[in-house]
């Protein structure tokens, strides 16, 4: 009997095991004097992979909202930003501009998740009764409002420069930069795996069936005595909290937050990744996001060998991404790994 056979059966349990292993390995690199030397060609890979892990938390939350419950949240970035900015404002030491209270980062991270969840509850309580596409507009407008506030309230949010001086716990523990990168990637990957296990368990449970019933036909769910609104609300808050966790981790990794990290582009990337992979399938959305982020990585390498300028290349990449979105919606609305029947779309 091989080791693989003795592992627990479910996808979720396996993800939890992988997550545990990742976190342990991250701790090994961060806490011991052990160092690694990464080839400098791989730096860009690690940077994109760490960002992928952060966005992975976002896409899992969004999938809970859209893929399972059918809530169209086009302001997902606002919860990401709420987590990031809360952590920054609570934990930053003497930022250049704006508020930095210098509290311990653990407390700040917890607060970041809570603030994002609270914001989710607030947006949800007011907008979840709106029709599908109007919920999209309300959430989008919320995200734009907050983006404007971040840019304009320099004394609080640091304006365009943002907030710096956020503690970087992993960097502080690890011996050198290369080890930090690896430990960060392992730790964030572990967080994604744990989240995967959690959402998988949630959606496999009868609870998840109710969410999908709300998505398929709200009236049916209500006629069975399920309060569609409170299920929608819970899914929305869970998704917001996950995005807040992503934002908090991101702030603690980069050591700074700025409005430029939290633009509409984040929402678009996560949405396209989710639709490409197949909304409703946890593995699918992570894979879809990997394809979209892989394109970003690929374009960084391709830039070196093609004769066009960097800005032209960025435009071409965004054209391709836009066209991918158009093509999925038209030719494969369930995404690559999604279940068309479950999503109620014609292929």
């Amino acid at each position: 009997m091989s080791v693989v056979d003795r592992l627990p059966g479910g996808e979720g349990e396996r993800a939890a095991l992988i997550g545990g292993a990742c976190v342990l390995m991250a701790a090994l690199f961060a806490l011991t004097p052990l160092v690694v030397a990464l080839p400098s060609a791989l730096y860009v890979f690690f940077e994109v992979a760490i960002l992928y892990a952060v966005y992975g938390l976002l896409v899992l939350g969004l999938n809970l909202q859209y893929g399972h419950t059918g809530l169209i949240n086009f302001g997902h970035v606002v919860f990401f930003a709420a987590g990031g900015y809360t952590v920054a404002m609570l934990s930053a030491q003497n930022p250049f501009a704006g508020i930095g209270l210098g509290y311990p980062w653990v407390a700040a991270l917890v607060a970041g998740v809570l603030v994002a969840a609270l914001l989710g509850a607030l947006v949800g309580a007011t907008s979840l009764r709106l029709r599908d596409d109007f919920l999209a507009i309300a959430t989008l407008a919320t995200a734009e409002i907050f983006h404007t506030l971040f840019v304009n309230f320099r004394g609080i949010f640091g304006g365009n420069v943002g907030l710096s001086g956020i503690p970087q716990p992993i960097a502080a523990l690890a011996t050198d930069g290369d080890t930090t990168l690896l430990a960060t990637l392992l730790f964030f990957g572990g967080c994604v795996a744990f989240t995967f296990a959690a959402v998988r368990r949630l959606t496999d449970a009868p609870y998840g069936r109710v969410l999908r019933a709300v998505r398929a036909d709200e009236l049916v769910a209500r006629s069975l005595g399920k309060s569609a609104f409170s299920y929608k609300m819970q899914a929305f808050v869970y998704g917001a909290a996950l995005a807040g966790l992503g934002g908090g981790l991101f702030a603690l990794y980069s050591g700074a937050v700025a409005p430029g990290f939290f633009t509409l582009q984040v929402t678009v990337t996560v949405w396209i990744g989710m639709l490409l992979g197949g909304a409703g399938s946890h593995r699918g959305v992570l894979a879809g996001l990997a394809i979209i982020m892989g394109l970003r990585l690929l374009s960084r390498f391709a830039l070196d060998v093609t004769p066009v300028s960097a800005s032209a290349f960025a435009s071409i990449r965004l054209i391709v991404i836009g066209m991918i979105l158009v093509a999925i919606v038209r030719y494969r609305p369930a995404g690559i790994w999604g279940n068309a029947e479950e999503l109620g779309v014609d292929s």
Partner: protein
Amino acid sequence: MGLAQNVVFGLVTGSYIAIAAIGFTLIYGIVNMINFAYGEFITIGAFVGILASGTLSLPLPIAALVAMVGGGLVSLVLARGFFTPINHTGPVPLLLTSIGLGLALRNAVRLVAGRGARYFDTSATTYRFEGLPDLPVGSVDLLGNLFVTSLQLVVVGSAVAVFLLLYTLLTRTDVGIAMRALADDEDLARVRGIDTQRVRDSVWMLAGVLAGLAGVLIGIQTNVSAGIGFSFVLQILAAAILGGAGSPYGAIAGSYVIGLVLALSTAFLPSGMTGISSAIAFLVLVIVLLVKPSGIAGREVREA
């Protein structure tokens, strides 16, 4: 600067938003989609106008006409290529497609035209109204000196002309009446022998024409760059929803509300905070969605 001057600015902004918002809301009402790529229709119209007036050195009114025709054609071709084939799938796939198309178009324009801003070659006469008495209430001056440029008058005049033509179109012509019938009840319209696809095509054309005109007017007032339409799309959307999505007359009212809110909040916010005026416009939008989602003159959008 007094309140009166800011009201002038608000009316000008409201005018070009209104022209665009009418096109946006007609598509919403008749094709039943939120067209997020509409900002790019405006950008393309503005660039057609720049080409016509700059490269071909046509006079500005002719260039505006060329931009309107170009906008209408581009809108029809894009709709035929991207939106009509998936018309039956409902509002969400259409919305997602328009987001993807908008992203692609915006960057295609950026790729071709570069990142810089271009300007229409215009000359304006400024009419000043000096010597108006100040009417201070607290720190706010309710009257004060004000000026109006001939270009601002052109913008407002174009908007009024569009409103009148639109009213005539919707009430006096067959195609306009068919549009209203389709917005009201598509099945009934088809039973009455209306070719719904042809009506949809004409709505796309009309929306494109309006986008072209709005693009040129925005270009005259500010400048033309690849992101110009996108920077207005949320305000247009806010205006259309504020007025009651699908209602062209509501969109006009909503646009002037948004225009005035933008101008007045810019004027009366403490300096350094003027940037949040767009946030205030969206706040108005969110409040409208929450309090009266049907807007000033529209149908119910709250479910069940």
